[in-house]
């Protein structure tokens, strides 16, 4: 074995780029900006990250990464523990099941794929939330979250693509 420990460490760190970038993005959405027009406008970057990395780098972003990301979102957001884990796992299953239809297609198709998967995930979250609290949230706010997240997808995907091409392109899929 010719690899030095630094090379091994670098390789390990590279493999962690998807989960680290997802964590970074999630943490950034929790930054308080004190802007009134951002009320209820927080994009669901955890869902974007899970979809993107599961679609393109399933080998580096498995179900345990999804589970961990969900736990972090749950503990930061104050949502019931397990809520986001459950929803992100559901999204993971959806992406694995239907991702093969979009992952070799142009970007627009993968964007539409995200719109469809996120719609199902958000609907699922809404149902779980409603059952948990026995109250229905307003559809209007759900729609705003959906629209903002779908609109911001290209930006996050672009960032993830940069990370993929810059640091992970030489890794085997």
């Amino acid at each position, binding site marked *: 074995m010719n690899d030095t420990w630094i090379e091994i460490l670098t390789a390990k760190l590279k493999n962690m780029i998807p989960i680290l970038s997802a964590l970074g993005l999630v*943490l*950034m959405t*929790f*930054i*308080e*900006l*004190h*802007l*009134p027009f*951002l*009320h*209820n406008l*927080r994009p*669901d970057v955890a869902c974007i990250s899970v979809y993107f990395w599961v679609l393109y780098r399933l080998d580096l972003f498995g*179900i*345990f990464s*999804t*589970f961990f990301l*969900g*736990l*972090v979102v*749950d*503990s*930061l*957001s*104050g*949502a*019931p*523990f*397990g*809520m986001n*884990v*459950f929803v992100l*796992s*559901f999204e*993971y*299953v959806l992406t*694995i099941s239907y991702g093969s239809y979009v992952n070799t297609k142009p970007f627009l198709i993968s964007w539409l794929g995200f719109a469809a998967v996120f719609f199902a995930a958000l609907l699922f*979250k809404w149902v*779980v*939330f409603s059952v*948990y*609290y026995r*109250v229905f*949230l*307003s559809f209007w*706010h*759900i729609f*705003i*979250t959906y629209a903002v997240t779908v609109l911001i997808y290209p930006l996050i995907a672009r960032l993830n693509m940069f990370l993929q091409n810059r640091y992970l392109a030489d890794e085997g899929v």
Partner: protein
Amino acid sequence: MKRRRVLFIQLSQFRLFIRKLVVAVVMFSALGLLILSRADSAHLGKAEDIVSKTLNPIIRVLQLPADGVYFCYEKVRDVVRVYYDNKILKQRVETLSRLNSKNQSLRIENELLSQMLHYTPPPEATFVTAKIVAGESDVFSHSVIAYVSEKQNVQKGQVVLDNQNVVGRIESVHGNYVRILLVSDINSKIPVLIERTRGRGILSGNNTETLKLLFTGSNSDIRLGDKVVTSGVGGIFPSGLTIGYVSKIYTDAVDVKPASTIDMIEYVKIVSYGLNNTLLKENEAQ
């Protein structure tokens, strides 16, 4: 031709099966966590505490550039506002100087009457000021995280004000970080009364920017702009704290607009009124 018998399933099929099994186990674990959190498990609270203590300092560091940008924005906005505010303040000073002389006489009168009634005043409220370091106001939850010193002895259940209006209460304490459940969160239920009519009700958050006033009674005389204050029932909030104003009246519901702009809050006052409330008792018991 001899038929080849297959005793075992192929390795790839086995791997696929294991992968599906793991996904199913994870999903069931998540469902289990949800059910446990419904039962308010103490172990989950500890797990949440560990994650919060680990991640909140990172958010605090990430917050610094955003704070810088906001600081500049605020300075520019303040300069623009100074002229307008000065005009208003001049008018207010005139009004206050008139009221001050009236208050002096009322205060003396009040002291005399209190002495006659052997009235014992309630203890003075103490407060600590805390900076909001992270926020979560999405469609599924409305809470913020504030930084406090551990020495300040902030406890679960304490009232959180922006300057003078109620914005929430302490939901949990994780070392130097406290989670504040905002009044707009779906879990927030506060006993209130309409200041003008003294009619009681429950003010409930619903994860939107307006609050719902419930259980007000069908014949209660509620008008647009009525001030909604805490009633003091339940022993968590003292009476008379402003929460918001009636903004819409429907046949079966009343909307209340919070008095403070919750999204714009940068610093909050965590107030201890020295009330022997149920939440604090529960905290001590734990």
